């Protein structure tokens, strides 16, 4: 096998990750339950659905701007997994859920997720295919479409989980104008600042993926959080050792990470 530069290290890291994940999965299945830090934004999603139910107004959700055929697909994936949970909550409390999409291939995925959620909750009659909308690849056509839904359908809450670009600020400010509760989550570093300053609840970076794990309701997902923490500790150690080593002029560790 001919590895690319840095391929060996990345491959080993992945194997390590998968091994730890499977190990944790086994442990959690056997009854191990760690204490999970409270992240306000998780509660924020329930609060948003609850308020929409009280007011009898719909909720708006969008999984963002990233496609599945790109390296940023992870955020869209996390957004869609969260959508499954949000759709179940909406079905349970009879809240209408409006979904807006920018990428064509994400459209059928979101349709499927919402439909299944309503079906599982025994509310398949309440599922309306016309509520899951596609607003084209064009960044600001999609943005104006979302803004049109928020203002036109009189939504009570706006939930944005996925990968976002400049349009993030437009959504957040438009929804704020209409008094929506806002929950946002993204790992796009350029857009987190806008969500943090304008939304009620924000899932920053890794928290978006954690939300996907916790919200999907499967106790086995907890294992992935434990795995993330183990990997985090390993990386902190690696960075510390590497930094100390480079301080003494030894670049061996850096070279292994980058070039091995």
């Amino acid at each position, binding site marked *: 096998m001919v590895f690319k530069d840095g391929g060996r290290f990345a491959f080993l890291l992945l194997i390590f990750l998968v091994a730890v994940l499977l190990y944790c999965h086994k442990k959690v299945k056997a009854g191990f339950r760690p204490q999970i*830090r409270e992240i306000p934004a998780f509660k924020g999603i329930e609060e948003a659905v609850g308020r929409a139910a009280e007011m009898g107004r719909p909720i708006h959700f969008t999984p963002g701007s990233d496609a599945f055929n790109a390296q940023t697909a992870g955020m869209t994936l996390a957004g869609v997994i969260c959508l499954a949970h949000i759709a179940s909550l909406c079905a349970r409390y009879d809240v209408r859920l409006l979904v807006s999409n920018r990428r064509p291939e994400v459209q059928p995925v979101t349709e499927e997720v919402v439909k299944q959620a309503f079906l599982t909750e025994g509310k398949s009659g309440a599922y309306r295919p016309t509520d899951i909308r596609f607003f084209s690849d064009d960044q600001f056509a999609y943005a104006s479409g979302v803004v049109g839904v928020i203002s036109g359908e009189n939504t009570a809450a706006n939930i944005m989980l996925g990968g976002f670009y400049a349009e993030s600020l437009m959504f957040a400010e438009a929804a704020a104008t209409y008094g929506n509760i806002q929950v946002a989550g993204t790992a796009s570093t350029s857009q987190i600042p806008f969500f943090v300053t304008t939304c009620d609840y924000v899932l920053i970076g890794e928290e978006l993926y954690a939300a996907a794990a916790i919200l999907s309701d499967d106790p086995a997902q907890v294992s992935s959080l434990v795995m993330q923490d183990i990997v985090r500790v390993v990386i902190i150690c690696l960075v510390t050792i590497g930094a100390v080593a480079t301080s003494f002029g030894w670049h061996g560790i850096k070279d292994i990470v980058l070039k091995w």
Partner: protein
Amino acid sequence: MDWGITVAALLNIGLWSFLLGDNLLFRVVQSLYVGAAVAHTFVLAYRNTLIPNLWEPLLGGKHILIIPFVLGLMLFTRVSRKHAQISKIPISFIVAVGAALAIRGSLLSDLTQQVASAMVPLNSVNNIVMFIGIICTLAYFTFTIKPTPAMKSVSTLGRYFMMAAFGAAFGNTVMARMSLLIGRLQFLLGDWLHLIK
């Protein structure tokens, strides 16, 4: 008079009318925009993807392309109540390729590159501050480890670092966003109304 510029200027005003609140003009412009953009997306997909990458090579003898063709048709089974399950197969394909690409991107650019660049030599105040910032921010995201008081202050420091970063990024973006707005105002006042000499 250039009709194109007038049309563009009126559409611009229509879109901006949203700033005054939801209104009919905005809805019409927004509908025009979405309609045209979705059509454009479709025409591009048809002319630049489906014809040259699927149809022509398929007719030219690249029979393997039958598979994505069939997968593509399977997507349409969602319209039928009875066979909707079939559409999960292409969806699974799309999502799996996406997941694999996400692992590639995160592993090779986010993790290894960033981890390596985080190994700064601790020989200046700046680098030490940077190192502390990276470690504290990483520690902030811990989910399942029971927080000790020391851990709590580390993650608080991490949050402060992030707030500084967000404030700076926000402030730095003001200039870019203003430039775009100024550009549009120069278009409206200059190219359209000829008020700018």
